[in-house]
């Protein structure tokens, strides 16, 4: 079962996506999005990307969802509705569980939708060569400041323009 932990995490990911895509009140949607962000961080961590998992928690959950939370609290004041008997939710959950059971049933499962999905190499990360004593993912992100200097300049400038646009939109008339 431990070899399929990534697949089970992705099943929980899809189930929580169903939870907010069926659109209950935004407060509950935000709560379920927090859960799906945490599960997505678990998927990234089990592939060895520790810095990018931390980025999910800091930037996504800590920054964006907090802003969503208090905007929801400010802009929508009424009695929030829960997930009533929504047939679409049940259909999505059922189809997802059927897919998961079919895939987990045996080895050498192959699914073809548009591309060929093969579960053969699922529990191993291909390691070609020695990466030494440093984590190559963190080194790739650190390269943002050496190889990606122009990228940082363009991104920073466009974000500054974006902030000015938001201020103009909020000023209104």
């Amino acid at each position, binding site marked *: 079962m431990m070899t399929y932990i990534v697949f089970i995490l992705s099943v929980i990911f899809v189930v929580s996506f169903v939870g907010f895509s069926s659109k209950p009140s935004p407060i509950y949607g935000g709560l379920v999005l927090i859960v799906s962000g945490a599960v997505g961080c678990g998927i990234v961590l089990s592939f060895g990307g520790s810095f990018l998992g931390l980025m999910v928690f800091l930037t996504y959950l800590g920054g964006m969802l907090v802003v969503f939370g208090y905007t929801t609290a400010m802009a929508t004041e009424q009695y929030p509705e829960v997930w009533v008997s929504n047939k679409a939710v049940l259909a999505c959950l059922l189809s997802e569980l059927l897919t998961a059971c079919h895939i987990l049933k045996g080895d050498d499962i192959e699914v073809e939708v548009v591309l060929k999905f093969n579960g053969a190499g699922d529990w191993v990360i291909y390691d070609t060569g020695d990466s030494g004593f440093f984590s190559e993912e963190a080194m*790739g992100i650190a390269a943002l400041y050496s190889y990606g200097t122009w990228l940082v300049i363009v991104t920073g400038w466009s974000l500054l323009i974006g902030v000015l646009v938001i201020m103009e939109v*909020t000023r209104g008339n």
Partner: protein
Amino acid sequence: MSMVYINIFLAFTLSFMGLLIYRSHLMSSLLCLEGMMLSLFIMMTVTILVNHFTLASMAPIVLLVFAACEAALGLSLLVMVSNTYGTDYVQNLNLLQC
């Protein structure tokens, strides 16, 4: 490709359908947009980590930063709608209706 991708594609498609189908709140569609960004981030990160594309590791961070900016812009529009109409119901946005 590995089996994890099926579920991440499915999650992207689900939140895309959720974005297109309105219920009553504009805020729920913005949350579905955030879900799309999260599933794209996870897909990009998993691809980069499995294939050891070291230099491409900065791409998920840039994606997340621009998704934050876009979320802020969407929220500012929602705040303006809510200031005009009191709530953020989608049926309030009917100035172009006959």
